[in-house]
Structures are given as structure tokens and as C-alpha cells.
């Protein structure tokens, strides 16, 4: 069952990602991307990252992508602009680069398998003991506390920055 779900989500993620890239309508692209994100969220669950999966759905699929949609609609980019998708040589190059990347990464990941990798998930005992949320929350508020707090400042800056940038200039 898990294997099936894994392959299903993987296939969904890859296909909808490809559609997202090839789709000329931005709104459709956004929707395909949302599908990818959902698939990824499912994969996160399979990979024992339940909390992250939830965040993924809430923040990415929920918040960020809605923001994208809003902007696209605000700019009235519903219909595709002419020549948005490069053709010919660009596609060939992009495809080659993508294939080469996959080849290189696959080679790096698959050959260099660490013999010490455990057969089962290393997180199982932790999740057993603390549950999905606490396992993430505990280091987050202890070892990574400073980074966490700084992130909040970053978000504040981003909000202020976004407002300043997006504000209409006084004529």
C-alpha cells in the first residue's frame, strides 16, 4: 500500500510539474503546481514528516499559491502572453540541462549509498516517543530557538517590504 501510494504521488508530482512548466495559461500553471505540492505533502507523510506535510499544505498550497493566484488575477494575466514559452533551441537546451542534472544527481545519490544507512527509518523511535509534532517542536524551541526568532523578524521585514514595494506611488 505504501509503495503504491509512493509511486502514485511521485507520478502525480512529476506529471503536474511538467504540465505546470508547459502550460501557457498562468492560472492553470498555478493549479498544476498546487497539485504538485499536495503530492509532495503526501510523500512527506510517507517519509515520516507529518508535521512538515501539514505545513506544506497550509503554507505552500494554501497561502503562497493563493498569493500567486491573486497576483496573476490582479495583473490580469489570465490569457497567455504571446511567446511566453521559448521554443526551439531553448527547449532543447533546457531539456539537456534537466536530463544532465538528473543523471548527475542520480549518480551522486545512488552510487554513494552509505552502507551504514539503517534498514528502517531512523525516526521511528523518536516518533514513537514524542509524536509527530513534539519531535519537530522540541529542537525548534531549544537548539534552533535563535534561528526561529530571527525567522520571525525576517517575515516581518518581508511583510513590510512587500507593502512598501507593492504600494502605489503617489502621483
Amino acid at each position, binding site marked *: 500500500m*505504501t*509503495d503504491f501510494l*509512493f509511486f502514485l504521488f*511521485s507520478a502525480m*508530482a*512529476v506529471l503536474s*510539474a*511538467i504540465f*505546470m*512548466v508547459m502550460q501557457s495559461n*498562468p492560472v492553470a500553471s*498555478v493549479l498544476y503546481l498546487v497539485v*504538485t505540492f499536495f503530492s*509532495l505533502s503526501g*510523500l*512527506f507523510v510517507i*517519509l*515520516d*514528516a507529518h508535521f512538515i506535510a501539514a*505545513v*506544506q499544505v497550509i*503554507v*505552500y498550497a494554501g*497561502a*503562497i499559491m493563493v498569493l*500567486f493566484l491573486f*497576483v496573476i488575477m*490582479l*495583473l490580469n494575466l489570465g490569457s497567455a*502572453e504571446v511567446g*511566453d*514559452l*521559448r521554443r526551439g533551441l*531553448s*527547449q532543447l*537546451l*533546457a531539456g539537456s*540541462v*534537466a536530463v544532465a*542534472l*538528473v543523471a548527475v*544527481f*542520480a549518480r551522486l*545519490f*545512488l552510487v554513494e549509498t552509505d552502507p551504514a*544507512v*539503517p*534498514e*528502517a*527509518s531512523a*525516526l521511528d523511535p523518536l516518533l514513537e516517543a514524542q509524536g509527530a509534532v513534539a519531535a*519537530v517542536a522540541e*529542537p525548534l524551541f531549544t537548539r534552533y530557538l535563535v534561528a526561529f526568532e530571527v*525567522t520571525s523578524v525576517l*517575515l516581518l*521585514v*518581508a511583510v513590510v*517590504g512587500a507593502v*512598501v*514595494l507593492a504600494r502605489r506611488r503617489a502621483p
Partner: protein
Amino acid sequence: MNAGYLADLALVLSAVLFAIGVGGVLVRRNAIIVFMCVELMLNAVNLSLVTFSRLHGIDGQIIVFFVISVAAAEAAVGLALILAIFRHYETVDLEAFRRLRW
């Protein structure tokens, strides 16, 4: 499916998604779509991190958490930028943004 095999598959998947993101940046001219491709690349990396977290400990997930928050900030600022640029150029075509080129 044992953990190592699953991890290998997940990593290859993340490489594939990342490559699709790169390809997207290369072929698209719409700034918003390019931006979305970047988000896709981020997510591909997140997938790797989660996978490694499963093998090596919880820290990977923490990093993903931070990546997501930074991505949120980035999305806010980036979209605001695109908005501002669009107001000026009336387009989101990257080819049109050549002011800083010399």
C-alpha cells in the same frame, strides 16, 4: 520497501523535480511562472531534506520548516517586486527588463 530503497527513489524524484524546475526557468519568460519554477526547485530540495532526515535525524525537517518560512517571505517580496515592475513596464516578460544591462 526498505528504507534505503525508498530513500533512493525519493532522492531521484527530488532530482527530477529540481530538473523540471530548472528547465522551467530556462524555457519560460513569464516572471510569475519562473518564480513558480523556483518554488518547485525549493520543494524538490525540501523533499531531499525530508528524505535525509529520515535517515539521519530530525534536523532535516527543522531545516525544511525554515525553508518554508523563508519561501513564504520570498514569495511575498518577490510578488511585490513583480507587481511593482509590472506597474512600470506593463508586462511581466523577463526579456523586457533590461534596465540594468549595460
